[in-house]
C-alpha cells in the first residue's frame, strides 16, 4: 500500500515544480467564475429569487462546481501519451497495479490542486462575490462524502476515456465530447435548477449530475436527508456500473497493447 502513497507524493512534488501554471490557473478560474456571475447578476436584475433559487445560491454553485472541476482535472491523455511515446512499457514492468498507480498519481495532483488552487480560488471569489456557507455541520460532512463519491464517478469516466486509447490512437475527440457532456449535465455551466423538467428526467438516468450538482445541493441544504440517502445510492450504483465497465476494458485493452517505437 505504501507504494501508492509514494506515487501520490511524487505526483504532488511534480506539481510543485510548476508555480506559474498554478497562479495562472487560479487567475483563469476566478475570471471564469466572475464572468458567469456577472451574467447571472444581469439575468436576476432586481429579482430576489427565481423559482425559489436565489442569486447567492447560483454564485455558490459556480464557485464550487467550477473550482472543483478545475481541481479535479484528470488527464484523459495519460495512457495515450504513454502509448504514443512507448513509455507504457515501463509502467507494465513494475509490480504494481497500473490503474491504481494512475489513480494515486491523480490523487497527488488533486491534493495539490485543492491546497494550492481550489482554496485560494474559493477565498478570492468569496471575498469579491461572496458565497453561502454550508447549511450546517452535518450537511458539510454529507457534502464531503458526496463529493468524494462524485469524484470517483468522474475519475472512472475519465479512466474509460483513457483506456479507449488501447483501441483508438487519438482520444481527443472522445475526451472533448465527455467534457462538454459533463460541463452541461453536471451543472457546472448552467445550474440544473434552471433545466427544463424533461431534460432533468433524462439527467436523472445519467451519472453526471451526481459529480457536482448533488454535492452542491447537499451543501446548500436544498434537499432533505431522505433525498440525500437516495442520491448516495445513485452514486454508489453508478460507481459499480462504471467500475465494472472500466475493468472489462482494462482486461481486454491490455492484451491489445501495441508498443510503438523501438
Amino acid at each position, binding site marked *: 500500500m505504501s*507504494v501508492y502513497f*509514494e506515487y501520490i507524493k511524487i505526483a504532488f512534488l511534480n506539481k510543485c515544480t510548476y508555480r506559474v501554471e498554478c497562479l495562472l490557473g487560479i487567475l483563469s478560474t476566478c475570471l471564469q467564475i466572475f464572468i458567469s456571475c456577472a451574467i447571472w447578476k444581469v439575468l436576476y436584475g432586481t429579482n430576489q429569487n427565481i423559482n425559489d433559487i436565489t442569486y447567492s445560491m447560483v454564485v455558490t454553485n459556480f464557485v464550487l462546481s467550477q473550482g472543483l472541476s478545475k481541481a479535479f482535472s484528470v488527464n484523459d491523455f495519460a495512457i495515450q501519451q504513454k502509448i504514443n*511515446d512507448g513509455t507504457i512499457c*515501463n509502467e507494465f*514492468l*513494475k509490480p504494481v497495479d497500473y490503474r491504481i498507480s494512475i489513480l494515486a498519481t491523480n490523487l497527488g495532483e488533486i491534493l495539490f490542486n485543492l491546497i494550492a488552487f481550489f482554496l485560494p480560488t474559493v477565498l478570492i471569489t468569496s471575498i469579491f462575490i461572496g458565497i453561502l456557507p454550508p447549511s450546517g455541520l452535518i450537511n458539510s460532512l454529507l457534502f464531503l462524502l458526496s463529493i468524494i463519491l462524485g469524484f470517483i464517478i468522474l475519475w472512472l469516466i475519465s479512466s474509460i476515456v483513457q483506456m479507449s486509447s488501447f483501441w483508438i490512437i487519438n482520444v481527443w475527440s472522445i475526451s472533448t465530447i465527455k467534457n462538454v457532456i459533463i460541463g452541461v449535465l453536471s451543472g457546472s455551466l448552467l445550474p440544473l435548477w434552471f433545466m427544463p423538467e424533461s431534460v432533468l428526467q433524462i439527467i436523472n438516468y445519467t451519472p453526471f449530475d451526481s459529480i457536482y450538482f448533488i454535492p452542491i445541493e447537499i451543501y446548500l441544504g436544498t434537499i432533505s436527508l431522505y433525498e440525500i440517502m437516495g442520491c448516495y445510492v445513485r452514486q454508489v450504483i453508478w460507481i459499480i456500473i462504471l467500475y465494472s465497465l472500466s475493468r472489462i476494458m482494462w482486461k481486454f485493452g491490455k492484451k491489445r*497493447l501495441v508498443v510503438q517505437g*523501438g
Partner: protein
Amino acid sequence: MIEPIIRVENLKKTFKVSKRANGLPGRIANLFFPKYEYKKAVDGISFNILQGEAVGFVGANGAGKSTTIKMLSGIIYPDEGNIEIAGFIPYKDRKKYVSNIGVVFGQKSQLSWDLPVVDSFELLRRIYSISDSVYKQNFEKFVDLLDMSSFINQPVRQLSLGQRMRADIAASLLHSPRIVFFDEPTIGLDVVAKEKIRSFIRYLNKEQGVTIIFTTHDMQDIEQTCERLILIDKGHKIYDGSINGLVDAYAYEKKLVVEFMQDYTIDEISDVLINDLEGHSKEFVFNPHKVSVKSVINNLSKYDIVDLTVENMNIERIVRQIYEGEIKL
C-alpha cells in the same frame, strides 16, 4: 543438466498494420474502407538460456528483437508459443514476475522528468519493496560504478543523454533482478559513455552472475559483454551459438591492403583476388583457410612496399554481410 532459466518455444506475434494507399483519392478511400495487412513480427522463435549467461540478441531494424524482448518481459501477449522464465509465464503472472527482472530501454526513460534522480529511485524502492540494507548497498555500488555522484541530485530533464542512460540503468537494477534485458542501452552515446556501460554490464554478469540479454546494433557491445549470440532476421532465428563460432565459420575472407612505391603490374597469385585501390595501393582478398598471409607476402617481396595492413573479418562485418544477404546461414 542445468535447467534453463529462460525457455522460449515457437514464439509468434503478428501485428495488424494499416495499409495506406498513395495520393489524395487513395487516402480518402482509405478513410472509409481501411485496409489492413498482417505483419509477422516474430515467427516461431525458440531458444533456451541458462542462469548466468550473457546473450547478445541481434538483428536488423524491424527484425523482431524488441517485440521478442517485450514478450519476454511480459508487456505484450504472444499470439502463439510458450515462454517460461524463472518459473513464471511472463504475460500471465506479470505482477509477480516483473520483480525478478530488470529491463533497460535505451529509448524510453522510466525516471520522473521533473524530479531529481534520487526521488525516482525512492519511488522504485517502494514499488519493489526493497529492504533498506539492499537498497543502500545497491545505491552506493551503482553510484560508484556508474559514476553518478555528480548528478544524482539533479532533475532528470537537466541530464545529458549519457547521464540519463546511466541513471536509467541503475533504476532498473535497484531491486537486484536475476535477469536483465538491455534493449539498445548504448544508442546515441559517445565512446566513453558506451565503455562505462559495457564494463558495468560485464561486472553484472561476471561478478554478480546476473543473466543478461542484450540487444544492440553496435557489435562491439556484444563482443565485449556476451559469449553467446542469437541472430534474428524477419522474425526467425538464424543463428544461435558462440560469437567465436560465428567468426570462425565465416571468417573466410582476409584482406591485405598494400601501398606500393609505384604502380606495378602484379603477377597473379592463385586463389587471391587483386583489386586496384586509389594511388599505388592494391587490395588482396583471400581465404585464410586456403592461402596463408605469408605466401601472399612472399609473392610481393620483389616489389617496393611502403605500407601494409591486414584486415580481418570481424563479427561486425560478418553480421553486416548476413543482413545484406551475402552470407547465408
